[in-house]
């Protein structure tokens, strides 16, 4: 019952919203508070014993089922917390942005959908909430309804729709391969048809990958996350892309966490590793080049999702020994949600006061925004992985996992480890750039509007608090939540892998510090040489890609259309020509059948009589010709039988 309440309560919130029209009651806050409490209950229940399941009492091919294990509980709690924080933040922000009611409705609907995804008990229910989430969050993206927003919204929607369709395809293939659809949280399956299963898994990975911003499919993400109103961006980047990660974790469960290499889709681990590495790299490189704060953050979402995917990939590849990767990923999901939300909220504060998000137009703002600057600094430290904050913990775990994988000597893993470090440097560099250009540097000449900022600060501070808390006690969270989650997923060895792990060892801390230092150096080089102003070639951007695709498709379609039209025209021309010729011939014949033989003109009845006699003559001659057996006049044999006139002799 608890499970089904989770998605329903936000829906009830919408009715409440109707009832409180015109009053300043923060319904989303109330709703997310309730869900937060429910989430806590859920977590307690789940950690206390078996996973919860619930089936709606309906018949038919689709029985919505709900389930929650530790993984679901973590995600539910995370979602509820982020919504709670953001709903503290958003009323003040949306007052300036406009369209508060629409935003609140979207927020509530999306919360419902997200919670639904996390507590879905079968793939259909999961898909249902996933699609709902796509639609409702689309309204976040196009909130402003201007050209840019609509374009970004299109990208978001079409990519998401494609994702949903791929999921559907994947479900079909897995359903075919396993005879009955596996439930979510039911552990690994042994498919009857491993090829179909593999393809199904691939389709589902691609589907969730689109949502998660996985490398070649990430293109929509920066656009969508940067045009949405900032609270929405925070949630999009903080949580909605984690739905993709959640899906990937669940798909990993189908394939089998902690299974040795006997499972059905052995390729999945290395593939995810590769994709994760690419995602990390692409995201961070693109982020370095951004001048817009929100876009920079959005690209970092891509990059950080890369970490998560990499962790999952490594975890899957290593089989039993992959506990670190899975734990790291789950951990990073939580951490990234926290600091990315904080970062977006911080940038939002700047934007709402200055109306500017271009980094090069900002500068020296620590004087005007001291509290924001401090909180932002904490978040930046978090994301760059500075020791003492939460990012350090999960990144260290992930790094351990990758190094362990690199021990196997596989080139893929070795390169993954090397690039992991490079990305760390890049992350540090780009955030150094962000923080330097915004808060430090020479003061920019921009107008700063007044307004109450307490709520902003409170919400960011809440996030920072948790971040610091985790950062100081990294193992606490890990053991309390992540390990049960991994266990629930079937990774029985999770607890053992971290038993002798200590976060505060010298090599890890030094590594991180060196990374940070290198990052600041790169940032300095980039800023002084102007390398950050390099614009990538058009074909690398989404617009360029879109243009290429549209040009290509357009050409194909236009060509096809041309062929189609000309074929149609050809046939209809031929048809009409034949018809008109035939009809006019008939008309002429009907009008007059006059004919001339020599100098005798046969007119009217004479011609008719002639026709009669000609027919007679033809009939007689036909016989005579057969009778005389003239070889040169023989009918060709290829005539159809009904035309051939064989005479009996």
């Amino acid at each position, binding site marked *: 019952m608890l499970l089904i309440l989770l998605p329903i309560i936000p829906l009830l919130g919408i009715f409440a919203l109707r009832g409180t029209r015109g009053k300043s009651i923060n319904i989303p806050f109330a709703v997310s508070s309730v869900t937060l409490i429910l989430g806590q209950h859920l977590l307690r229940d789940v950690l206390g014993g078996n996973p919860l399941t619930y089936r709606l009492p309906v018949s*038919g091919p689709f029985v919505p089922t709900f389930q929650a294990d530790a993984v679901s509980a973590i995600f539910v709690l995370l979602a509820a917390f982020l919504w709670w924080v953001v709903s503290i933040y958003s009323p003040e922000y949306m007052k300036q942005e406009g369209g508060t009611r629409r935003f609140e409705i979207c927020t509530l609907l999306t919360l419902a959908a997200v919670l639904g995804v996390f507590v879905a008990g079968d793939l259909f229910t999961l898909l249902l909430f996933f699609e709902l989430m796509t639609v409702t969050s689309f309204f976040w993206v196009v909130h402003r309804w201007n050209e840019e927003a609509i374009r970004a919204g299109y990208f978001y929607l079409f990519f998401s729709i494609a994702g949903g369709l791929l999921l559907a395809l994947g479900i079909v293939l897995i359903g075919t391969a396993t005879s009955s659809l596996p439930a979510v949280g039911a552990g690994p399956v042994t498919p009857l048809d491993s090829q179909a299963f593999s393809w199904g898994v691939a389709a589902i990975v691609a589907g969730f990958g689109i949502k998660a911003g996985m490398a070649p499919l990430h293109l929509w993400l920066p656009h969508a996350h940067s045009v949405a109103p900032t609270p929405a961006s925070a949630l999009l980047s903080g949580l909605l892309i984690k739905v993709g990660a959640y899906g990937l974790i669940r798909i990993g469960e189908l394939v089998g966490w902690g299974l040795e290499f006997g499972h059905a889709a052995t390729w999945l681990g290395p593939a995810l590793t590769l994709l994760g590495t690419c995602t990390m790299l692409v995201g961070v490189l693109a982020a370095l080049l951004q001048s817009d704060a929100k876009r920079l953050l959005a690209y970092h979402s891509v990059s950080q999702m890369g970490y998560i995917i990499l962790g999952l990939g490594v975890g899957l590849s290593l089989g039993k020994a992959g506990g670190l990767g899975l734990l790291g990923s789950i951990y990073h999901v939580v951490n990234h949600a926290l600091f990315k939300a904080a970062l977006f909220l911080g940038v939002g504060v700047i934007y709402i006061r200055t109306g500017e998000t271009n980094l090069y137009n900002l500068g020296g703002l620590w004087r005007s925004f001291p509290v924001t600057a401090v909180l932002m600094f904490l978040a930046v430290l978090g994301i760059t992985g500075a020791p003492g904050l939460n990012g350090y913990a999960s990144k260290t775990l992930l790094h351990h996992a990758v190094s362990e994988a690199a021990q196997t000597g596989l080139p893929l893993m070795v390169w993954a480890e090397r690039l992991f470090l490079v990305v760390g440097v890049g992350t540090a560099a780009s955030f150094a750039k962000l923080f330097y250009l915004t808060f430090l540097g020479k003061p920019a000449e921009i107008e700063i509007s007044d307004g109450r900022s307490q709520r902003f600060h409170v919400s960011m501070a809440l996030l920072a608090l948790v971040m610091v808390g985790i950062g100081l006690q990294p193992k606490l969270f890990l053991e309390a939540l992540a390990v049960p989650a991994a266990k629930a997923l079937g990774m029985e060895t999770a607890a053992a892998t971290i038993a002798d792990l200590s976060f505060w060892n010298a090599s890890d801390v030094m590594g991180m510090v060196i990374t940070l230092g290198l990052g600041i150096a790169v940032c300095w080089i980039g800023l002084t040489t102007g390398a950050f102003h390099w614009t990538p070639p058009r074909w690398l951007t989404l617009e360029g890609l879109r243009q290429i695709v549209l040009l290509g498709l357009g050409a194909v379609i236009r060509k096809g259309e041309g062929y*189609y039209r000309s074929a149609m025209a050809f046939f209809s021309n031929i048809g009409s020509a034949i018809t008109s010729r035939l009809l006019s011939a008939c008309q002429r014949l009907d009008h007059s059948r006059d004919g001339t033989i020599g100098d005798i003109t046969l007119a009217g009845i004479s011609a008719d009589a002639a026709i009669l006699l000609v027919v007679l003559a033809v009939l007689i001659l036909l016989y005579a010709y057969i009778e005389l057996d003239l070889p040169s006049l023989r009918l060709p044999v290829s005539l159809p039988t009904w035309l051939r006139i064989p005479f009996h002799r």
Partner: protein
Amino acid sequence: MTDLVLALLSGAVGGILIGLMPRAGNRLRNIVALVFSAAGTIFSWRVAGAVFAGHTIRISGEIAGLAWSLQPDPLGAIFGLIVSTLWLFAGVYSFGYMAGEHKQRTYYTYFLLAFSVTLGVAFSGNLLALYLFYELLTFVTYPLVIHERSSEAMKAGAKYIVYSLSGAGAILIAIIVVYSWTGNLDFAGGPLLAAGGLRPGLGWVLALFVAGFGVKAAIMPLHRWLPAAMCAPTPVSALLHAVAVVYSGVYGILRVVYSVFGHELMGQLHLSDILPWVASFTILVGVIIATQQDVLKRRLAYHTVSQLSYILLGAFTLHPWGLAGAICHMISYSTLKVTLFFAAGVIAKRTGKVRVSEMSGVGWQLPRTMAAFGVASLGMIGMLPLNTFWSKYYLMRGSVAKGKWQLALVLITSGLINAFCFIPTVVAAFAGERGQLSLEKGSETSLMLAPMLLLAGIALLIGLWPGLVWPGVEAVVDWFF
């Protein structure tokens, strides 16, 4: 038995009654139309209920030296259910849409006659009866196509008649051949040709049947009458050219595949390997052409062409899942497409805008209409809360289970192109000026709005609870497999 007769008669009687009341006012006429279409709906629901309860309802007799029979089986019952339910909705919508139009008497006369004839197609128990009603449908709907009496409408009508009659001719030849082989055209005793096994000419007969019914089912080279027929009033386009008439073609093909040939015999024909690809071609090309259309109704028409082949694709997979998908799609597509057309009709009626490129800002003027349109467009993509997901799911399931995974890719691709087809329309409708909320020609009237929103709601309900229609689908699948 009585229900069957009454279901068939109520439309005809209503139509003739309206035809014989030249001086009746609009209100009276509407009441008569409503009463008779409601009666038809109720009776056909009762018939369907009886069929699903396992009763055999059969009226047969020998007329003109040939056996004729009416005997709805689950497939016919489902078709009857869809048709009769939607007829009621379209009727109510018509009251709103046609108010103030000319020639209402003619319109309602043929509207109700077509109801009867379509139910006849659904409930026919042998090929001859099916052929008779199929042919009659052409004539009964012709006056609706040329309702505008413009030269364009007349041309469209001529096209419609020529295409349909040629198709009917092909069917007649095929029926004759089947008759000469089996001496029996009844559907009740299992697939007609199954007992005879493979024999030469079977493929040709199938080709003739498919080409003949394919005219109304708008298989790609034979589809050209359908976009032309869009000059009819919107309720007609919505009901007849998106559902009833075109479904009669689809229904015919389903009948041919499962009741005349049977899935086992079909599986042995080479043609059955090609037919899914013919359907796929139509699916893709139809929807691509649809994206290129600017006039909304034409776009919807080409989209219809594409969607009908989904059903055919399901039928041609010859797999229980595929058939289930086809039946599901018959149900779900019809609800959504009618919604789309109703919305297009409201837009055209209230704003006078018929082109997609003119529609910016319409969403703010007609929010509920556009919302319904949006929901339906999402459904056309095959997104989950809508019922079309289930049909797509089972279609894909069927094709994958038959080893034709490429067909699943076709369906996915088509879903994506569908998104390109309608989403921009919806988004553009909300993109323009938000200021002018008032309309010169009045706003959404409840007579037009209610059927539309109700249908969208039904689509959502079925999407969330496919168990609602599943027994019917299962019954059909069990019947044929």
